């Protein structure tokens, strides 16, 4: 459990654990200041555009099509590609697989969708802020994740205006009233859950309290951004709803311009017993069983409560439950976890592809999409499901089978014998999986059968 105590390095690791970052285009550099990141993207793609303009001599229509596929699409896909690749290579080739699984969990807990709000540049910084909070207190993670530029934009807090604020009466502003989207999900998804019994009035009050939290627009924006983490988050007092607020019976009083209230609220939400239960149940469901025993949930919740929401204690409690009781249950892997396990097990080189060449070649985000879990684009703010029923269907199994065969085709280091030995360890020597693999006609077939077998699907 030592690996849960400190945040492991995040990098483009190869199989030997060396970074391949130096071999990647400049836009693969992890820059969490999105203003600087945008500059890097601009510079690279502007240079590429110039090269194309100089070399192409073709009809306008063809040229425009080429520009769309060679410049505009990759420009938009590059940050998503970068962050999907670095996360996957760290999970596959890094040394702290357990930590990485918890990181996937928290990124999904604070899910954002880049296509819903055009926030590709904010997605990586959002996830890395969460990562940096995984060895501290949940209260810190909650505050930083909810006030990250990605979340403020995705759940429309950037559109919300206190109806009695000075800004509400400014005809030059596009918005003049409340948007309660983030307020509701902060209570429902990120912290206490509906089990806490809050009302519509609590949702409205939370949304009022959240008004003013917005995102720095880049050069030319006179508003000052918050320093990192969460570069770009700003508090705009002129649109903050004035006055005290009450959420679930607790009063919040503005000091100065009112920016103090969010931190006070998220601290109280993090300390609420319903949050401990909600997080514990969700973790137990993700790591232990679709319907975890209440004892396990209670022990995890207790570890959280007794340590004031300490993340290391929380994660350790989950690991203890899995070690003690995991054998009694089976968990169907999510596509994301399955793909990572498949690469780890086979040692096949991760097909990272490239966002360039028009996006019309396979790249890692597209593979995630085909197996059903495109990381940057969950359909809804509750993220992806951990439940077996959501991942078991003919089409879902077929997609994993197809991808398994592709992995087998490039798992050059493996022999059928080695795959058979792995199957013996995984499923037991008497399992019907073992002869199936040992009699396979080829390595790709043996790998596909292993990776799509029920035993591997449920590790």
């Amino acid at each position, binding site marked *: 459990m030592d690996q849960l105590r400190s945040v492991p390095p995040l990098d483009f690791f190869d199989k030997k654990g060396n970074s391949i970052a130096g071999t990647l285009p400049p836009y693969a550099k992890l820059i969490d200041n999105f203003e600087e990141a945008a500059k890097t993207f601009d510079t690279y793609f502007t240079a590429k555009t110039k090269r194309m303009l100089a070399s192409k001599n073709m009809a306008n229509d063809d040229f425009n099509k080429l520009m769309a596929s060679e410049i505009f699409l990759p420009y938009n896909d590059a940050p998503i590609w970068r962050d999907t690749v670095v996360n996957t290579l760290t999970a596959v080739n890094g040394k702290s697989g357990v930590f990485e699984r918890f990181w996937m969990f928290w990124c999904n807990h604070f899910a954002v969708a880049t296509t819903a709000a055009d926030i590709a540049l904010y997605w990586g910084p959002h996830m890395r802020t969460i990562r940096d909070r995984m060895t501290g207190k949940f209260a810190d993670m909650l505050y930083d994740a909810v006030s990250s530029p990605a979340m403020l934009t995705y759940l429309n807090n950037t559109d919300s205006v206190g*109806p009695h604020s000075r800004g509400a009466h400014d005809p030059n502003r596009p918005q003049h009233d409340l948007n309660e989207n983030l307020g509701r999900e902060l209570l*429902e998804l990120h912290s206490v859950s509906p089990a806490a019994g809050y009302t519509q009035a609590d949702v409205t009050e939370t949304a009022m309290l959240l008004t003013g939290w917005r995102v720095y627009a880049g050069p030319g924006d006179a508003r000052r951004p918050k320093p990192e983490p969460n570069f770009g988050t700003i508090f705009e007092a002129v649109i903050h709803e004035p006055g005290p607020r009450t959420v679930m019976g607790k009063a919040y009083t503005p000091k100065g311009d009112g920016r103090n209230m969010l931190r006070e609220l998220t601290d109280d939400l993090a300390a609420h017993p319903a949050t401990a239960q909600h997080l514990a149940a969700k973790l137990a469901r993700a790591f232990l069983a679709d319907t975890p025993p209440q004892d396990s949930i209670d022990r995890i919740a207790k570890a959280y409560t007794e340590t004031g929401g300490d993340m290391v204690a929380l994660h350790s409690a989950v690991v203890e439950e899995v070690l003690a009781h995991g054998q009694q249950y089976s968990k169907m892997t999510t596509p994301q976890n399955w793909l990572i396990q498949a690469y780890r097990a086979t040692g096949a080189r991760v097909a990272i592809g490239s966002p360039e060449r028009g996006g019309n070649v396979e790249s890692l985000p597209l593979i995630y999409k085909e197996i059903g879990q495109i990381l940057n684009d969950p359909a809804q703010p509750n993220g992806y499901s951990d439940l077996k*029923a959501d991942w078991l269907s*003919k089409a*879902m*199994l077929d997609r994993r089978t197809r991808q398994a065969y592709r992995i087998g085709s490039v798992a050059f280091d493996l022999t059928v014998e080695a795959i058979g030995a792995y199957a013996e360890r995984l499923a037991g020597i008497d399992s019907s999986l073992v002869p199936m693999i040992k009699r*396979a006609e080829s390595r790709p077939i043996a790998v596909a059968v292993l990776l799509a*077998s029920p035993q591997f699907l449920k590790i």
Partner: protein
Amino acid sequence: MTASFECSESLSRRSFLKATAVLTFAGLPNLSFAGEVTDRRLLVVLLRGGLDGLSAMPAIGDPGLKGRRRHLMPDGLLKLDGFFALHPSLVNIHDAYDNGQGLFVHGTSFPYTGRSHFEGQDIMETGVLKPYSSNTGWLGRALDASGYRAVALALPVPLILRGHATAESRYPTWISSPPDAVYDRLGKLWAEDPDTAPFGAQLASNATESVGMNASIDVGSPVDMKVLALQAALQLREPNGPRVAVLDDVGFDSHASEPNEYSRLLSEIDDAIGIFKHSIGDEAWKNTLVVTVTEFGRTVAENGSWGTDHGWGSCAFVVGGALKKSGIVTDWPGLKAADLFEGRDLKMTIDVRSLYARIVTASLGIDPEIVQRDIIESPKDDRFDAYI
């Protein structure tokens, strides 16, 4: 970027054999409600996010509407009965109405006022009012009772269809399929595991066909709702194919920029319905119903960002050649401040489960008592009998 599915005609004989096998396996259709079961078809369109019924079908005759929605009223509304109008994107749905094939219900929803997407969607799919208490969907239970097959044009099988072992999902992929030897072996392994058994047998027995969707699509090309609707039509038009198809659309949660978003989303749905009607063919269309399902409606007043927040009452659309006539069914709750639920939402005055219960009986031939007991419990609303 185009997506094309394997043409289903070339598979008709094999599809027929497969259908026969499935029917034998599942038992013959339950004909307890004798006489009504025919060759009805049903397309269910899920509209996730909470459909703003007042954008899709504005009550222009209610003086309370305009003042509260200064930025949300589209130009070029399509005329209905004078009191209601349709969003200009809904041309195919409007055509259906003009041709005696459109039934619209307004001020309707599930009796759930919690305003949570996730609880709301659980209820709309399970038909059970306590969230997260059922792992089967009302449509899945209906299929189980009728013995018919269903197909979801969605990647995971949506909860609404679960509970029915043969429900399958089809969605195009560019990843090519491995040799049959892989499916043969996996079929045996999957058969040994209770979780994978129902799917393993299907996959192994028809590796290249039904897994299918051996669609040739470009790598990474977006999957268009129209393509899925076309596939639904090709499946449902087969004489021995599935009777029920589900389209699963998301994005109706219009907290901001609703005019633009709804023009796009409603066009997408309306185009999909148009393609579906065209592709299923005149004969099958006569026996077809298409119905929309959403988790809740939205606030009557627009919010600060040209959008609306989570509410309660919405509208539901039913179109299809199997309708007896066109009409609008509503107990209009009104838009005066005192008429709104908690001062903000359009009220539900018609329990939408009554509509779905009637559709289950009409399309799948299930006895109303069984519908009430096992599938979707709801207050009886005789008004739907005149249309469906």
